[in-house]
């Protein structure tokens, strides 16, 4: 399968990328690792007229201690997250979930920012970032702004990013020693999650769901029950509240709701262990 023809522009900096987006608007698409975009282009579900390649913009590949939080460059590859020592100490959940994305070949190319900006509710990292209450730094023609993760995901493949904006950084809290678990249910090892559940325990417990609606979702009913003293098994019964799981070849909505309850229970038990 061959993508439809497009013009290719290699950005050397964030400024060049933003300028290209500003000039070409909706006709342009940013290319990071390409692990989500190129398959869509090969299927011709995406046919951008201009591809702006960020692959050489190395300034956004980093994991830094920024004092209050950790700062992760949007172009940091999954491979670099899963082997990062600072994350091992300060945010082991991010390191562990990065290692669950696709397979090792995909993780050599794919980036955290690409995964977030793609806005696919079946992706692993966005739900974790929701549970971590991450903040996104976005650059556009008018400068920089920050977007809390709760306001970032608008719908299936839709985010708060404007057509001329570039995601540059993901900020996550320092959580040394926090309990966490990511439970991913899939048919083959490297597949997308049919449903996934992530729990992060640091004093309170935050729970988020993969592929249970048009966006990654917080399981607020579960969190509320836990705060009121419910056991993991009791709280997990509320996992499907407020979700709208899709039906497809892999699972009916009912079955996804069942999976949500089972995986949330397992995640809560593992995060407490």
């Amino acid at each position: 399968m061959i993508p439809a023809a497009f013009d290719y522009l290699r950005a050397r900096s964030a400024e060049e990328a933003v300028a290209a987006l500003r000039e070409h608007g909706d006709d342009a698409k940013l290319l990071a690792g390409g692990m989500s975009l190129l398959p869509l282009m090969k299927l011709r579900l995406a046919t951008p007229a201009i591809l702006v390649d960020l692959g050489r913009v190395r300034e956004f590949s980093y994991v830094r201690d920024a004092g209050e939080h950790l700062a992760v460059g949007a172009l940091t590859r999954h491979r670099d997250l899963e082997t990062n020592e600072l994350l091992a100490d300060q945010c082991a959940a991010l390191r562990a979930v990065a290692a669950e994305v696709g397979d090792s070949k995909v993780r050599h190319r794919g980036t955290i920012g690409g995964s977030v900006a793609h806005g696919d509710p079946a992706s692993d990292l966005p739900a974790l970032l929701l549970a971590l209450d991450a903040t996104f730094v976005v650059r556009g023609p008018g400068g920089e702004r920050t977007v809390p993760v709760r306001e970032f995901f608008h719908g299936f493949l839709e985010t708060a990013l404007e057509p001329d904006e570039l995601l540059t950084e993901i900020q996550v809290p320092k959580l040394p020693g926090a309990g966490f678990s990511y439970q991913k249910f899939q048919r083959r090892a490297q597949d997308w999650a049919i449903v996934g559940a992530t729990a992060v325990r640091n004093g309170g417990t935050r729970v988020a769901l993969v592929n249970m609606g048009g966006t990654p979702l917080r399981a607020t009913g579960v969190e509320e029950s836990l705060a009121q003293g419910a056991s993991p098994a009791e709280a997990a019964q509320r996992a499907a509240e407020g979700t709208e799981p899709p039906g497809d070849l892999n699972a009916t909505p009912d079955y996804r709701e069942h999976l949500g309850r089972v995986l949330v229970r397992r995640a809560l038990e593992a995060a407490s262990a």
Partner: protein
Amino acid sequence: MRIEATVNGKPHQHDVEPRLLLVQYVREVVGLTGTKIGCDTSSCGACTVLVDGESVKSCTMLAVQADGSEITTVEGLAAGDEFHPVQAAFHEHHALQCGFCTAGMLMATVSLLDEIPNPTERDIRLGLEGNLCRCTGYHNIVEAVLAAAESRR
């Protein structure tokens, strides 16, 4: 667009369309057909090559993204008539049946052993996720990777 890449140690320069996939570049432009196109959807790993020493699925990368890179394909593993240690281990342990996945398995294994020189069986099974063998010959493939790691010690 003009790209320059080193393929198996040899420098190449070509004018390519931006939409040319790396796997097509390797097979049709450079003429090295050892790399296979299997699923063409980044699921099966038959097209795995090394870009700057790391395994990637060349059906899901553009040739223009590899501009300036060092690309290694299965043809670049052996030193003359001498098998690469990973090839020798696959040969010795009969780690192939039909052979269609083999080029990709070899390249994925070279990258895996570079990252984890002394892998456990679990490391190997996780590391070869995304490289599918439709003959289901995984048992001998894992044996071969263990042996290759041993032989490099």
